[in-house]
């Protein structure tokens, strides 16, 4: 069972959360000009790294708010939890273990 730190509620059990997959996939803005390959890439292609992965989580059985996290996909250790809009690479905003 993973211990996941909701940036609003604090550490809670994994069973309270649902995972929303890869984070920071921006919907293309110039949709009129996209090729089928570019649409396919946006809709279906994923990074799926073996290592650190930034992903979206929903505190489904808690505050019901979305947030982002950085987690290692081999050790499952979380290194960062951050709210939507926060920059995980900015030194001050990194809320690891908060």
């Amino acid at each position, binding site marked *: *069972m993973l211990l996941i730190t909701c940036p609003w509620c604090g550490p809670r059990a994994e069973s309270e959360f649902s995972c929303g997959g890869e984070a920071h996939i921006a919907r293309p803005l110039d949709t009129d000009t996209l*090729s089928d390959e570019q649409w*396919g890439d946006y809709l279906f292609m*994923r990074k799926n790294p*073996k290592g650190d992965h930034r992903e979206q989580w929903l505190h489904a059985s808690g505050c019901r708010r979305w947030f982002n996290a950085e987690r290692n996909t081999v050790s499952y250790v979380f290194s960062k939890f951050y709210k939507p809009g926060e920059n995980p690479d900015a030194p001050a905003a990194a809320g690891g273990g908060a």
Partner: protein
Amino acid sequence: MNRFSIFTIARNAMSYHENWQKQWRSPEPKSSYDAIVVGGGGHGLATAYYLAKEHGMRNIAVVERGWLGGGNTARNTTIVRSNYLWDDSTHLYEKALQLWEGLSQELNYNTMFSQRGVMNVGHSLQDMRDIHRRVNANRLNGVDGVVLSPQQIKDMVPIMNTSASLRYPVMGASFQPRAGVARHDAIAWGFARAADALGVDILQNCEVVGIRRESGAVTGIETTRGSINSRKIGIVSAGHSTVLADMAGIRLPLESHPLQALVSEPLKPVLHTVVMSNAIHAYVSQSDKGDLVIGAGIDSYLGYGQRGSFPVIEHTLQAICELFPIFRRVRMNRQWGGIVDVAPDACPIISKTHIKGLYFNCGWGTGGFKATPGSGWVMAHTMAQDRPHALNAAFALDRFSTGHLIDEHGAAGVAH
């Protein structure tokens, strides 16, 4: 290769079974091969075997990071069936099932393929509508299948709780009599032995660390045992497919998740068919050794650690206990996770790529074991002829830009 028969067993009994030939060689890598298959699981070994047998290639290597069949081949619930909904999937899985039916004889290796039938249980009116639709679709495609009433289910599996008072009552089931289970290790070992006999080099403890390309074509791989040249490379590496795709600069629509399974202590024979429930997420069969083989779901998050989270097991066992009250006091022996590469439409990708000579066979997700021989058969054709067989033409990588998905999620009677 020594053939296995009653006579060779008797002859070897004279020497206390100490002089059996090794089942396959452990050669040193050659500097170059006509074709390389990356991944020594069931699918990869089957690919190499059919490349040699059906397409006359002899200078082939299978490279495997660990040991043969140590990944998902050894980590599944061994169910074999072909009752998918859509034509493309049904034809592919039915080809595999037909190969399974003759495989023990063909490989001279007992795959313990047991056609004990697979029952997919429905718990709601919509489940039953889907089951009727799927069974009708199967029969139109020449795949066997019947719809069972709750009474017929009870007659067949008396230990199942079919009472109307269940939270999710059993309202019926589809049943495919030709489906069943097989021995997971035997399929890897059988294909390895048969491929080796046809001259295929099986290179274990040989991890691929790079894929060499020149002007849009592959030229070879870098491995922990040195550099190997080849102009045909097939990647059959399941949960690690995107790790290899990254080496070649290819994006795949796959995400790797841990899928868990568990086995109980051995019991007397009590369940003679395979029971699956999509809605409450339980599937269970009993192995020849007597243990219950139970499949759980995938973790919702990505993971390469070959273990899974406990809530998933708890969820599955709740459903098993509800459906089979007699199992409530059974103790579980072992639990494990395998890394499955899941595609958005829950269907595999068996495809050429934009790099000449580089082929991918991946995305089998939670249901690859059943397809092992068929997967190898179409992959071998795709690699040898440099074009897909009619059976896997629809499973190309470009379906994620053309939009021609084969949406088996929820349609296939699969517990995902």
